[in-house]
């Protein structure tokens, strides 16, 4: 963990329709090789904020994003999409392996779908390395050529993480990655995130406070589109500055 920020969010506002803001001028910096949890009640804009970081909103023309996000000092909006997404990977709420592809193909999908040609040996290496780092290799090495959708939910989610890190990104965005999983699969993913933190910077959206407390280094609390409070997880949980943070953490709302 370092204290250098890898990502700085500057005055970011996001609106789904004119005048209605889901995220209101949020500024924050994210430390490298740390897990930063974004918490808040439903509809507080936490997912919207996360999805702005790899420009997911470009898929929906109605969404308007203003402000800036800088990756190592460089605005993400000036990068070509493919380059940005090689640096910032994303894992979604529900496991979404490509149903038409095998486990193997899913891991290298980022390369094959972008027309990056690799030798068979290179691909084998990437697949094995990625699957090993998500602790899935031993479970699927016999069934690499079966469809990814045959795996269990937790395995599929780890496969999706493998797909995201096969590009060797700097940052991994995780949008409530365990909310569709059972407790055992969840704890496996949480352990995994702790491991991944050594090599990647993780940004985790969660509505599960205890999850944020368990695994994150820093926490951000959002409410009604605003960033209310941000700091070390321990400080924020034990000694919140804002009364709304305290109310949320003690279960008064959310």
């Amino acid at each position, binding site marked *: 963990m370092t204290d250098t920020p890898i990502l700085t969010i500057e005055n970011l506002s996001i609106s789904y329709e004119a005048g209605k803001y889901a995220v209101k001028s949020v500024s924050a910096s994210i430390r490298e090789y740390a897990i930063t949890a974004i918490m808040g009640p439903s509809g507080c804009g936490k997912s919207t904020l996360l999805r702005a970081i*790899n420009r*997911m909103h*470009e*898929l929906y023309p109605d969404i308007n994003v203003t402000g800036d996000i800088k990756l190592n000092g460089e605005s993400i909006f000036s990068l070509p*999409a*493919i*380059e*940005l*997404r*090689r640096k910032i*990977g*994303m894992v*979604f*709420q*529900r496991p*979404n*392996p*490509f*149903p*038409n592809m095998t486990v193997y193909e899913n891991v290298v*999908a*980022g390369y*094959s*779908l*972008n*027309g990056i040609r690799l030798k068979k040996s290179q691909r084998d290496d990437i697949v094995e390395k990625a699957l090993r780092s998500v602790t899935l290799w031993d479970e699927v090495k016999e069934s690499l050529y079966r469809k990814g*959708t045959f795996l269990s939910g937790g395995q599929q989610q780890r496969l*999706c993480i493998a*797909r*995201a890190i096969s*590009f060797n990104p700097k940052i991994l965005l995780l949008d409530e990655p365990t909310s569709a999983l059972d407790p055992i699969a969840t704890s496996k993913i949480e352990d995994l995130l702790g491991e991944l933190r050594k090599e990647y910077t993780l940004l985790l959206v969660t509505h599960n406070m205890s999850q944020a407390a368990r695994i994150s280094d820093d926490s951000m609390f959002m409410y009604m589109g605003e960033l209310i409070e941000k700091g070390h997880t321990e400080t924020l949980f034990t000694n919140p500055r804002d009364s709304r943070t305290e109310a949320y953490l003690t279960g008064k709302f959310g």
Partner: protein
Amino acid sequence: MENILEDNIRRRALRNRRFKWLVIAGSIVTVTPIFLIVINLIVKGARQINLSFFTETSPDTFQAMTATANGEIIPGGIANGLTGSLIMVLIASALAIPTGLMTGIYLYENKKKRYASFIRSLAEVLQGVPSIILGIIAYIWIVKGLTKGYSALAGSIALSIMMLPIIVRSTEETMSMIPVQIREAAFALGVPYYKMIFRVLIPCSFSGLATGVLLSLSRILGETAPLMLTALGSPVMSLNVAKPSSAVPLLIWDFYNDPNMVNMVWSASLFLMIFVLSLNLLSRSISKKRKYI
């Protein structure tokens, strides 16, 4: 009080039983004609179906008359109809499948645009246009305008216009059943738009797209009216698309108009029905195999 309740329950049970029998009777009324048709076709048509039924062209009246008079089976077959149908369906598919797929994808990707909803309603209108009118259109465009005479090409055009709305609709429906997460997964990997469509969306929805195509095929295979105005019919096998051509349903009509060939009507109908039925069953089995949609 007790009495009223018991009465009520008894009456409801009775009504329930009555309704059940009504439903059963209705279903029997529905399936009876289907069984009658199948039995009739098999009894009267199966005798004629042998190898030469598929390899020989349709008989002339005289051959058919002598055969019927001697109590033999009518010689000849439906080979000219088969080749004609095959060629016209192939051309129609070559025109309608890519166009329909692209239009369907466009409609799905631009759901809310005004132009898209205009196209969508046009496709709906097209689906409701009586097939004979499409025949007339193809007659004016192709028969009078292009081939200067009845032609297989004109028939193909008419059939392709019939296929188009079915494919457009099924494509749009299938596409909208793909979870948005799959698109987002591709997008989050930086996949360009066209690659997302060709390498992710189309393969993911392949079974649905195939079902739509097969249904549109089984729809046009039995079409007769538009072909009467365009392909006209022909007693010989012809591979020339600028010349008149026969088709299986056209042959059925021809056979029907010749009193000596009534038996051929049953055979050709039996074949056509079995063929279309298998296409439908195939498309059903494909769509059952869908796992993720």
